[in-house]
Structure formats: C-alpha cells, structure tokens
C-alpha cells in the first residue's frame, strides 16, 4: 500500500535530496495560530510534518517543547482539537504526511480504538509515541499498524546491535534516529557520528532514516541531512513561536511569519544537499 509517507520518501529519492521534517506543537500558542502555521509549512519547504500532542509531563522533552506544550494546554488544546486541526489541514493538502508525536496517556484516555479510527479519518499518517517501547507494542503499535497507521520508532545511541532488530520489528514509514542521549533541544549532535549510526541502522532495514534532537540552524540541518534521508527540526521552531509572543503569551502578527521564515531557511539549506540518485 502506498502511504503518504512512503510516497514522499520515493519522491525525495527521485529528486536526489534529503527531506526536512518540521515539528510544531499543536495548539501553541493557540489552536487558530497553530493551524495557520501548519497550513504554511508545506509551501515553506517542510516535506513531512510532526505535530506534537501536548502533555503535562513530557519526560523526554527539554525546556522549549515543555513550555510549548504548557502554552497549548493553557490555551485549551486537547487531543480532539489536535485531530480537528489535521482534518482542517487535509482540506487543502492531501500529500504532506502528518505524524503525531507525543506521549501515551492522552491517547489511552481518549481510548485506543476510537483514537485510531479518528486519527485515520482526520488524515494522520503516522505516530511517534515516546513512551511506548517495543515491550509495550500491544498497547497501540500493533492495532495502529493493522489499521494502516505507520508506527515510527525511535532508535537511539543506546540501541545496540542486539536490540536494533527488536526496535525495527514493528516500525513502519521511517525510523527516527535520536542523535544524542538526551532530551529534545539539547546540544547539537556530531554530524559524522550521526552518519555512521545511520549507516548501521540501514544495514538492518530498508526504511528511510530521519535524524533529529538538537538540530537548530540551517547549517546544522544541512550537515545532518547529508548523512540521512531526512532531518528533523523541532525545538528551534517552538522557540521561534515563543520569541514572537506578547507579554501575555498571545500570538502577534509576527508569530506565523517567524516560523515560516525559519522553515524556508532550513529548507533552502537542506535542499542544497544533493546526492547521486539511486545510492
């Protein structure tokens, strides 16, 4: 079955370039502004969109994404509203893959079967659930895969050769390589080490590998993208939102534009990375 995610990676391969994956927090700083940012991401150069589902206790996130989630929650964001944002986005874009990224509890409380049905119907393509390792596959991974939602797994520097097959077993869409042992928004990874790690993962899977955590600037994005199928930028975009807010934490005329501009700069850098087709 061709999914939006596989179609996008096929397309990137044909273009002979890596992809840019952008992360924003759904509902940050409010649902309406966030939807407007979401709508502009593809034209600004995002190849795949990760939409963060806010959670009060994001144990793998650094201060930037923690704060973005709390802003969204304070403005009344819920999982239902996040799915509604995806549905609204799909009215104008049927090609750009959307991956929801977050923690299990909001989905568990929404109800797993109901969530899978509603996410599919809204036009969600994949899920990255930070606190669901392979050991907990029965909770959401297996039913999601069965329903045709890609379950994208995180591989990390601590995932050794022995464990890698377990991590890759029920992964679909792409593999997300977490480039550092740490939380989102930490120090930038070493591009050389990342290239080696990606090559190691590729020995075990035919899936594309995206690399993220700690990538902020266009130059870093280009350097990481050179050794991977795609690069993920998150905290820097969430920070771009924060920097434009007024004293009460409300969106200003600059909010959408600031994110859009940074995505354009990132995309330009990533698109400058070319490689021989059919490696």
């Amino acid at each position, binding site marked *: 079955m061709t999914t939006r995610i596989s179609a996008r990676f096929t397309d990137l391969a044909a273009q002979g370039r890596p992809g840019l994956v952008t992360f924003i927090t759904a509902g940050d700083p409010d649902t309406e502004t966030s939807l407007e940012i979401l709508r502009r991401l593809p034209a600004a150069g995002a190849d795949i969109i990760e939409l963060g589902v806010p959670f009060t206790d994001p*144990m*793998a996130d650094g201060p930037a994404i923690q704060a973005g989630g*709390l802003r969204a929650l304070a403005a009344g964001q819920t*999982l239902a509203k996040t799915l509604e944002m995806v549905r609204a986005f799909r009215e104008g874009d049927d090609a750009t893959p959307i991956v929801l990224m977050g923690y299990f*509890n*909001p989905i568990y*409380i929404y109800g797993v079967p109901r969530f899978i049905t509603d996410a599919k119907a809204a036009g969600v393509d994949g899920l990255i659930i930070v*606190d669901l390792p392979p050991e907990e596959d029965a909770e959401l991974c297996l039913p999601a895969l069965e329903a045709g939602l890609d379950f994208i797994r995180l591989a990390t520097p*601590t995932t050794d050769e022995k464990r890698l097959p377990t991590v890759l077993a029920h992964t679909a869409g792409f593999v997300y390589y977490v480039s550092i*042992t740490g939380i989102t928004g930490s120090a930038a990874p070493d591009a050389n080490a990342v290239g080696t790690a990606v090559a190691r993962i590729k020995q075990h899977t035919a899936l594309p590998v995206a690399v993220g955590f700690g990538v902020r600037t266009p130059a870093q994005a280009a350097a990481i993208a050179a050794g991977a199928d795609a690069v993920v930028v998150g905290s820097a975009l969430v920070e771009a939102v924060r920097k434009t807010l007024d004293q009460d934490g409300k969106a200003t005329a600059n909010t959408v534009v600031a994110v859009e501009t940074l995505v354009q700069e990132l995309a330009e850098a990533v698109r400058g990375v070319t490689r021989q087709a059919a490696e």
Partner: protein
Amino acid sequence: MTALNSYRTGPDEGGHFGIHGGRFVAETLMPLILQLEAAYKEAKADPAFQAQMASDLVHYVGRPSPLYYAERLTEHLGGAKVYLKREELNHTGSHKVNNVLGQILLARRMGKQRIIAETGAGQHGVATATLCARFGLDCVVYMGAVDVERQKPNVFRMEMLGAKVIPVKSGSSTLKDAMNEALRDWVTNVHDTFYCIGTVAGPHPYPSMVRDFQSIIGRETRAQLQEVEGRGPDSLIAAVGGGSNAIGLFHEFLDDPGVEIYGVEAAGHGIASGAHAASINGGRPGVLHGNRTYLLMDGDGQITEAHSISAGLDYPGIGPEHSWLHDIGRVKYIPCTDKEALEAFQLCSKLEGIIPALESAHAIAKVMDIAPTKPRDHIMVVNLSGRGDKDIFAVAEHLGGQI
C-alpha cells in the same frame, strides 16, 4: 473465575500487576532498564550481596526497628491493641533508607559512580545523600521548588552530606516534576548514572525491586509479634504516597487470609474539593513515569496537580502493585484529610512522646477511626514510616504559630 492462590507472586515477566505496571519509557532508557533488571536478578540470588545488605541493615541503618506497643494510644482509643512499627528510628529517620541501601549496593555492583534521585519530603533525598556519602558516590537530588521551601531542614541535610540539590521549577514544582527532571537527567547521562527511585513506582523492575528492599518491615513485624503475642496481626495500616512503606509492611501478610489491610491516601482538603493526592479514591488508570496505575488527571489525560499538607504524599500517582491490590480488593484504600492528619500528629506526640512524620500521621489518623470499632484482642500494626522533625515548621504554620 478462579481464585488466586497467592497475592505475592507478581509482577509477571513484563512487570505487570493485573493491568498495572509495565515499562512505558523512552527507547534511550529501555536498554538500561533491561540491564538493571538483569543485574538485580543476579544480585538477589547472590549470597554475598544479601549478606552485605543484612550486615549494613544492622550496623548502619540500625535494624531491626522496634515493634512498640502504643499503650496510651490504645487506652485512649479504647479498642484494638495498637502497635507501632518504628521505622522512624532508622538512620536518617524513615523507612526510605531500606530501599536506598539496596539500590546503592546494586549501583556499586553495576559500576555506576553517579546517583540521581527525586524527592518530595526530602526523606528519600536525605537517605540517598547519606548512602552516597557512605560509599563515596556523586549524588544529585531533584526536588520541586515548592518542596524545597516547605522541607528546608532536609535540603540543608542533603547539602551537608555532599549532595547537589536541584530545585525543579517546571510544571507544579513538586514531586512529579522532580521525577520528570530526574528521568530527563537519566536519559541524558545514561552511561554513568544510576537512578535511585524512592518508592514502588516507575518502570519495571523498580516497583518490585523497591518492594523487595522494603519487605523487611513486614518480615520483622511477623517475627516480633510472634515473640510478644504468639501470633500474627489482625490488621495492618500504612500511609500511601507512592506506597513503599505500605507495601513493605503489607507484602509479607498478603496471603494471610484473616488480615485486614488498609492503605491511607492523602485526601488534602477532601476528595470532593479536588485538592487532594488520593489517586485511587479520586483518580483512574493511566500511564505516567513508566507505569500504568491510578493517576489524577483531567478528561484529556493531562495529569493534574496533587495537594497534600505532606510533601511525601503529594504525588498524583501510586505504585502499580497497590493499584492491582485495590482492583482485586485485597487492600482497602481509604482517604485522610490534612486536618485529620494534623490532629493525629498532635495526638501521637502528646500520648506517645513520638512526633510522627506528617505522612505517617495520615496512617495514625485512620487508626483513630478504625481502632475504636475493634475488640480489645484485635492486634493492629501501624507503620510509623518516619519522624516528624522535618515537619515542625509546616505544622507550626498550620496551627497558627511560627517557629
């Protein structure tokens, strides 16, 4: 339905107690958790490890802790014969040290030099700082900024012992946020760091490992009661934050059919007020901090703030084994308000000459309710999990005075 033939065999391979427990952690931590599980299994079976535990429990911690017949409290209440299991007499002043000793010996075995911990009341932080000093390990303790304020004496003790205390200002600035921050530290420093969790919560194997280290409370209780009364208890009662002192007392007796068991949850201003920390009485099952268990949350699955006068009970969750013991009905979980705990704090101090920790005062408050309804030959054991020195400032403030 088939009846269980034992309540003491959990968890299963995956760390589940019924639907509760499990390993809901980021992939970065998963290999570490599997390593820890293997290392603990090995240590548990190693007579040398057990011998060192046993020796340090006697000579460093000061065990066994006395089982004391609270004569005046018993007379005052006019019912059950009340015994206090004196965990407050352990080195560092609470039961927390039993678990910390086990984990620190394990960390040493695993070659980890850096220890991190979360703390609420500061008792677990003090116990961790103490054993790190004793064994020459680096110690970092995460503590909610609100708790740093209300448990100042313990912050000073930790620093005195050489630990670095990091006030956590994210979220609600209490125990749950300290735990988030500790998990973030662990994800970042996986290679040299051992996370010493302070209660029977977190991802498998923590809930069962911490329970094993605390179970000495129940084992001693059985032997001590046998000696003075020639028989076992009729009821057990303990305060439940994450639930380590409670399971430590309960686990030994879960299969004793006649024994009534009560866990006391902090009800803050009352369950109906919404300002409480009673995960079972006022929450529902969800996933946080590596395990499924009863949690306080809103309709969207967002974790809500807990409230309790006692920093050690001020947590929106509970250990998964307790959630299961509640589901199957083996243990009764009952609420106790701030006000009731404050009354018990004073009563225990005046009648027995023992100033209890505010956490333990929650258990004593329910003894005050239940003991009078029991006959005089009913033997009730309450876990006096800690001493109240750390709480005198907070209590003074609530009683309208100041120190």
